Structures are given as structure tokens and as C-alpha cells.
């Protein structure tokens, strides 16, 4: 299928882009790796495509203990970035499992976070890494949203329709913290049937799941158990997640996988510790 008609604009400045996004039925075109398939299937029919690929939003910087990844950073760039490997080692673990090389050449961090696909890896990583998302609109200027308040549900975020995600800011990995991203997928590069993003620190933990609940969020009960040094309780806590139910993948199936993956993630970190 071919897309339904749309208008197209390619702003050269952020201000221009934000002005365009204030128009009705405008959609941001970044990497296009999710939007274009939906448009080709005519599931998405924006009136106006705002192509932000010319905006200078792809930078990756590390300063003052904060890793800032621009929304237009391509998956392949984030995956290969030494700064990211240093300050957010969870991300390369996850990105190696995101889609395929050609998709990673085009797909962007901002696109993945803005779409909030429940099965996507990067939202879970942002939650587990305690990211802050920087967004802007013409009407209200810039605001900063903690990841926990950004992801609201199935394909739903705190981004207003006139807002653009500019960057993700992540506190650089603190000493003593360890990270694991594990997922189960039918085939290499497929969206996760279930995945866990885990940051484990001294008496603290941050845990998020993908592919399990419709809206990605931290798992406070499991985190508390992990912080208290009770992994069994943490795994048990995942039995009460509000998992999605679909014909091919039941809620019970997703919860089961989440539990298996958390146990494996913990074992993985333990083995890494033992090796170190």
C-alpha cells in the first residue's frame, strides 16, 4: 500500500519545527522506521509530516555527570558511542537487540521513546536509567519530564501534540551499579515478547519491563525487594504485573517470561561479579 496524502515540511530550525507542530494532525518524521510502515499501511494518516532530520538534535555529550543523547541520535550511533558505553552501559546491551542493522542506521532514540511501543526496549531502559526527557513546544517552551512521568500507556506519552522530544538526559552510571538488559524474542531483532531492563546498585534497584504491560513503568514492588536483597520476592512480585493479553501471547505467558528474565538478569550480574 501507499500512504494517504500528506503535506510535508522540513524545518531548518527548532523554532520553525515547533511552529509547524502546532498545526492540527501534524506528525514528527524522524527516522521513520515505525511511522512510515504505519503510513504505508494507512494505519497512520497525518495531515502534515514535519521532517526534523535537518535539526541539530543528534548530539551525544557527557558533561557534569550527565549523559545527554539528542533525540535524533540514530540507534547505530548510540550503540557505537564510547560515551554511552561508559555512562549508560545498559543501552548498548539493549540496542544490540533492537531490530536490524539497516533499521538502526535510521531509527532514532527520540522516535522510539515518543512512540512508546509497549514492546520496545528503549523506554524500559530510560526508566531503569532514571532518565529525564527534555521536550519543547512553541507555546510553552522547554520542559523536563522524568521518564516515570513520560510513559503513560499503550503508545501514549506525556508529549503534547505540539511538543517535540529534544533529548534524553541520564545520570552517568554511578560506581557500584550494574546493569542488565535481557529479552526473549521469537527471532533475532523482533520486538520482545518480554524484556527486562535492570539497574542494580548498592541497596537500590531500578527495574522496568518491555513487552509485558501496555504502559511501561518502573516496578516498585520488585525494586523494593531487590533493594532489600530479596531476589525471590522481587521475582514473585512480577507475578502481579498488569500484563497485556493477546491470542498469541497471554498475560500469564508474559508474566512468566518477565519472571524468568529477571531471574536470569540477576544470575547474569552475579556471574559477572564473580568473574570480576
Amino acid at each position, binding site marked *: *500500500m501507499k500512504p494517504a496524502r500528506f503535506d510535508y515540511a522540513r524545518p531548518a530550525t527548532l523554532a520553525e519545527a515547533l511552529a509547524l507542530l502546532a498545526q492540527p494532525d501534524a506528525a514528527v518524521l524522524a527516522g521513520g522506521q515505525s511511522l512510515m*510502515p504505519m503510513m504505508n499501511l494507512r494505519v497512520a494518516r497525518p495531515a502534515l509530516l514535519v521532517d526534523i532530520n535537518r535539526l541539530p538534535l543528534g548530539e551525544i555529550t557527557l558533561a557534569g555527570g550527565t549523559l545527554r543523547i539528542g533525540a535524533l541520535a540514530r540507534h547505530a550511533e548510540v550503540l557505537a558511542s564510547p560515551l554511552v558505553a561508559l555512562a549508560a552501559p545498559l543501552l548498548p546491551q539493549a540496542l544490540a537487540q533492537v531490530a536490524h542493522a539497516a533499521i538502526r542506521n535510521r531509527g532514532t532514540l527520540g522516535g522510539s521513546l515518543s512512540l512508546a511501543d509497549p514492546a520496545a526496549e528503549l523506554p524500559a531502559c530510560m526508566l531503569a536509567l532514571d532518565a529525564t526527557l527534555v521536550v519543547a513546544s512553541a507555546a510553552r517552551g522547554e520542559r523536563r519530564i522524568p521518564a516515570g512521568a513520560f510513559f503513560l500507556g499503550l503508545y501514549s506519552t506525556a508529549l503534547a501534540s505540539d511538543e517535540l522530544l529534544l533529548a534524553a538526559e541520564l545520570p552517568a552510571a554511578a560506581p557500584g551499579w550494574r546493569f542488565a538488559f535481557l529479552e526473549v524474542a521469537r*527471532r*533475532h*531483532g523482533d*520486538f520482545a515478547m518480554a524484556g527486562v531492563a535492570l539497574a542494580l546498585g548498592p541497596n537500590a534497584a531500578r527495574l522496568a519491563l518491555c513487552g509485558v504491560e501496555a504502559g511501561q513503568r518502573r516496578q516498585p514492588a520488585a525494586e523494593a525487594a531487590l533493594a532489600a536483597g530479596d531476589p525471590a520476592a522481587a521475582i514473585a512480585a512480577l507475578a502481579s504485573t498488569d500484563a497485556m493479553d493477546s491470542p*498469541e*501471547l497471554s498475560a*500469564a505467558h508474559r508474566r512468566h517470561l518477565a519472571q524468568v528474565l529477571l531471574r536470569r538478569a540477576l544470575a547474569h550480574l552475579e556471574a559477572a561479579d564473580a568473574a570480576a
Partner: protein
Amino acid sequence: MTHIGQPLPRAATARLVAGRGSYLDDVSARGEVHAAFLRSPYPHAGFRITGTEAARALPGVVAVLTEADLAAVCQPWQTKTGSAPGMVSPPQRALAKDEACYQGEPIAMVLALSRAVAEDAAELVEVEWQELPAITNLAAALEADAPPAHQGLTSNLAWSTELKGGDIEAAFAAAALVVEDRLTFTRSTGVTLEPRGVLAQYNPASQALEVRISHQMPHQLQRHLADLLGVPLGRVRVICPDVGGGFGLKMHVYPDEIATCAAARLLGRPVRFVADRAEALLSDIHAREHIVEARMAVDAEGRILGFDVQDVQGLGAYSIFPRSSTTEGVSALRSLGAPYRFSAYRGRLRSVLQNKVPTGQYRSVGHPVGIAVAERLVDLAAAARGEDPLEFRRRNLVAQAEMPWVNPLGARMAELSHQQCLAKLEALLDLPTLRTEIAAMRAAGRCIGLGFASIVEFTATGPEGYGRAGVLVAAVDTVVLSLEPSGEVTARASISEIGQGTTQGLAQVVSDALGVAPDQVLMGSGDTATTPHGGGAWASRGAAIGGEAAWGAGRKLRAEVLAAAAALLQCAPETLDVRDGRITDASGPRMTLAELAETVTFRGYELPAGVQPQLTVAHHYRREQDTALTTNGFQASLVEIDAETGIITPLRHWAVGDCGRLLNPLLVEGQVRGGVVQGIGEALFEACRYDETGQFLSGTLADYLLPMAGEMPDITVAHVETPYSGSVLGAKGAGEAGTAGAPAAILNAVNDALAPHGASVSELPVTPGVVLRALGRLA
């Protein structure tokens, strides 16, 4: 013979690796318009098209057509076959009339200056829908209160039959052991990477229709287009350019393709239709939807006594035209247990109409189903007897001395090499070592399984098959050769090329038959205007049937060449030979083929009186015996199951096969490996799913999972060569055996892995959910 049997690369692929192929959508016609179809969103609905004005008014729209428009130029068709007497399959039209019987059935078409605009306009066609009760679930379709798939039908049973031989009651009464299982097979589909497509042009002045189409058999389609559109056969030209995969999918009569040709006839301008992937998954034939309940009787010595089988097969809304979807059910029953000696068989087939797209012949038609069922029963019997599964098989395989073997179904098998294939497989596997490795992996907590499958595949169907059933499918082929003045040989074959490499194999045959280098043989196929009528590509027939035609043509041309050369050289033809493009005698080369052809073509005065060399010859081949050529083989699969996630990883796969003489082992191995992976896909990934209301759920390649490089194992391939004694070359079919046996080998491997956990599965594809439920980890 110097080139037959050599692993030569396929000449034609030099174009394809360079991106210089010519597939259907690579060529356009001036003034063409693009078609898009409005398809039923419902599995079953009455409808009335109430308005096409808005669609017509859209700038760029050329026409909006409905059934009423096409009826003027296009007849309906109905599937009838002597192989399934009394079958109920309602007439089918290029565009549905009043009632849509499957989701995706085309009900209107829009022609516009671009595909995008045609799609825009299709959304504007106004339709009043009356949803009707739909039946999609196979198990429920025969229940008394099931809604009929077509209004007015009293039952969804399209056809039933019973194949039997021997005394089945006595066999089961005498059995020391009876094993049984119920296996379910979810629909899968071919997914050629190039979707179906057609570019049709009608010249009203010459009343001639020219159709370029991605299709496996140009001549079959030519005949149907002539019949349906009322154009004399000789004025219908069908051209199949490079075809991006066939697998049986591109050999049926599809409503959208016929509608495109009809529209071209109505409009008098070129019309292009290329299916997008979503509509391909929705409208291409599906295949292999079966529920099979089967029992096998075994005596106290572990000998198979008989099979008792009930197969319910989903047809979809129509039995596919022209071959009939029932063929798959019959083939499943025929292939079930075919490698083994047994004395009684009863197979009951019920073929059922449903509100789904029709099923049809797809690579290895029916065999994967029948073989999976039989091989599962064989493993169950071996396990019940506490016996090695290969020992059980070895005892029951039909021995060479017993052949030709006619089993109780009347299936005749000859020149099979079960024992040699088994021995070769055991050697390849290094079974004692492999068993030790498996034991060690299991001891380390890994869930590992090894599975086997023994295969008989019925290939290269002869004229007895469809011919006797009254279905217009050619089982004969012809090759025409011309010696060009350059010394090159142009060949035109009614066999067609769909990527399997048949034309390379035929070039090697011509090369040896005539005495020229293979690269001097320029193969042409896939065009009704340039090739004689013949069967095209189906049933793994290229080498066995096309090869014989090529050989015969090559020998005829050689005789002509020798006679002409003898006349020029004033010697006896018997003293001459043709080697590497040169005519030689005992003293060495005397002239080249180019010199001879130049003389004949441009300097005919040099020839003696009465000598009329025929440098263009044709050879037609019809096999006079053996309805099909049986081939045999073994496969083995080693899999690992992650018992916590249910993910199955094929680790290794082995395939040993006997397809008679190998024309080109590189091509045969390509067929085997590709076929095996298609079979693994069927076993582990591929499924056409529907929800409870009959809505299709597998409409994109993100939903319909194909096997990809990351998950597939390396496949070890070996051959046993038992040439078919009834032909010159002795080749049999090679294109489908990989697909035939892989699902069974995988299913058995999975069950071997699960057995220590007290679990088993009887469902394809074996998804992670199926595994976890079998292990009791999921409810």
C-alpha cells in the same frame, strides 16, 4: 557426459546479483494505469455497491469497475476435477457478486494514474455490507449448527473420500501395539519475496491480449485467459519474466489477476496490478490446514501392520482453480507411511469449505502433513517398544528387493534406496558420538532432542495425474533448439524458470547431448509466443521431464549437424563426432559448429543436392509409465529447547536424499537447503492466524513470521543416486523433498527433547506457548 552432474553456477544469476534482473514490476508499459482492489473486510458478508461517483471523481482515476462491468468480458469459473467427483465448490468470479466469502475477496477495482490514487479512490467506493455468520474454525466447520461458508449451502463438507486397501479391522485386531495421536496443522503460506503481479495489455485492433505476469506456468494461464475472456488462445500471449519465487503459490487462477486482464480488455490500455504484501498475505493461497487423527497398528515383532487415518482439511471458500485444493488432502494421505511396508490402510478425508482464502498446492503438496503424522506415530511406537527410533524404521522400510512396491493405497514405489540413505545418514551423524554428546548436554541440564524423518516424495507427475481427472494441466514438455550462425545454440523450453535453476540444468543436458560448452547454450523459457505448450514449473518436474525433452532435442540437433557436416566433408556421419563445439573425426577437429551453421545459413549453395539440414529441431517428451516418480530420503534434526521460555533453536539439520541422477548438485543442494528451511519455518514459525470472529491476524511480515538467517542452522546435505530406469537421464524430482521432511524431523526432535520432561506436542507450528503449555509452565 562431461557437464551433466557438474556443480556449475547458474548463468542467469550473473544478472540477478548485479540488480539487472527483470521482474514483473521492473517493466512498465506506456500509458499504463494502476489497479487497486477493494477487498471484503469481512470473512462473510452480503454487499451492495451503492456509489462509485466519489471514487470516479477523484483526479487521476480512470475507471471504477465492479462485477457487473467485468461480466461483459469475463466468465465465472468453477473447479471441477475427476479426482474429486461430486465436490462442492461454488462458481468464482474475478470480482465477487453480492456475497463475499472470505476476507480479502475482491469486490471492486479502481484504475488510476498511480497506485496511491487508486488506493485513495478504493476507499471512496460506497458499499452496504450485511455481515453474515462466518465459519473459519476448521474443527467447528462440520458441526451441525455451523453457518454455511456460502449462503444456500446446507453443509460445509465440500468433498469426502476414503482411500483403503487390505483388511484394516484385522490389522488392528492382530496388533500387539496401537499408537495414536491427533495432530493439528495451522495454515501457512508461500510468501514469495516478490508478490504476485500482472501487467495486461489488450490491443482491440488485433484483438490480442498480452499478459506479463509473475507466474510458474505461462501456458496453463494462457488457456484459462483464453477461456475466461473469450479471446482465441493464439491471440493470448503470456510472458513470465524473472519470477521472484513460486513455491506453488503462483500457479493458480487468482481473481485479482483475471480482473486485471479483463480490465485491460475493457479499457484497451495497459493495466498493472502488483499485490502489496498485506494483500498478498490475505489473498495468496494458504495451505496445510489439517486436523489428523491417526492410529498405527504394530505387531509383536515391531512390524507395522496398518494405518487408520482421519484427515479434516480446510479448503477455504473455494476449491482452488484449476487443480482443486483437495489434491493436498489426497497427497497427505498418500505420503503417510509411504516408506514403510504395511498391509492395511484406511484413510478418510473430509475437505471443508470455510470463510477463508482458498488453500492450494504449495511446495511439497500434502507431504509435510502426511510425513509428520506417520513419523510421529513411528516414534511413538519405537518409544512404546523401548526401541531406538532408527531401528524401528530400519525394520519397516521397504527393501530394494521388494520393489516395485505397491502399497495398500495403490501407491507404486520403485527404485528407492531407503537402506542406503539411512546408512549414509547414520554415517553423517556419527550417531554414537552424537548420542554421547546429547547425553552430556542433557546431563548439564540442557533440553536437547534429536528427531528423524523418513520420506517418500511423489514427484514429476505424468499425464495420468491431472489428465485423467480432466484438468487442463500439461504434464508434457518440449524443447526447441536452434543452431545459430555463431555456433551458439538457442534453446526454448516449455519448462519455466522461477529461480530453481532448471534452465541451467537443461543447458548442461543440451551441452552434453549435442557436444557444446554449456555457456554456448542460451536458454529461453516463460513466454507462450516463443516456447511450445508445456507444463512449466510444478511438482519438481524440470529435470525429470524437461531434462528428457532437452536431451532428445540435443540428440536430434546433433544428428542433423553430423549429417550436414558429413555431406560437406564427404564422409559418413558415423565417422564424425561433436566435441566442445567442433565437428571432429579420427584425425581431430574438422570444422566448428559456427562454420557449419554459417555455411548452411549463408552459403547453402555449397551443400550437395538433397541435403536440407534442420538446424532448428524440437523434441516433445511424454513419460508413458509411472504416474509419478517416487524419490526418497531421510532427515535428522537436532534442536535445543529453552524450557523456561519455550524458544526452540534448531542446532543442526541433516538431509540425505535420492532424487535419481543429479543434473547439477549445486542446484539440487540449493533446493534441499531452501526446502528444509521452508519446512522449519512451517514447523516453528509460520502461521496464518484468525481471531474468533474470523478476522485475519497475520497480515504483515511482522505478524507472519518467516525463518530468518539468525535462527536457521547449517544443513548437511548428502545424496544417494539411483537413476530412474525409465528415462535416458534418470533424473527425478528434487525441489520439494526438503520441505516434505523437515517438519516431521523437527516435530520428532522437539518431542525427543520434551520426553525426559514427560511432555509432548502434537501441533505445528510449535510455538513457545505450545512448548510452555506442554511443559505445564503455562495453563
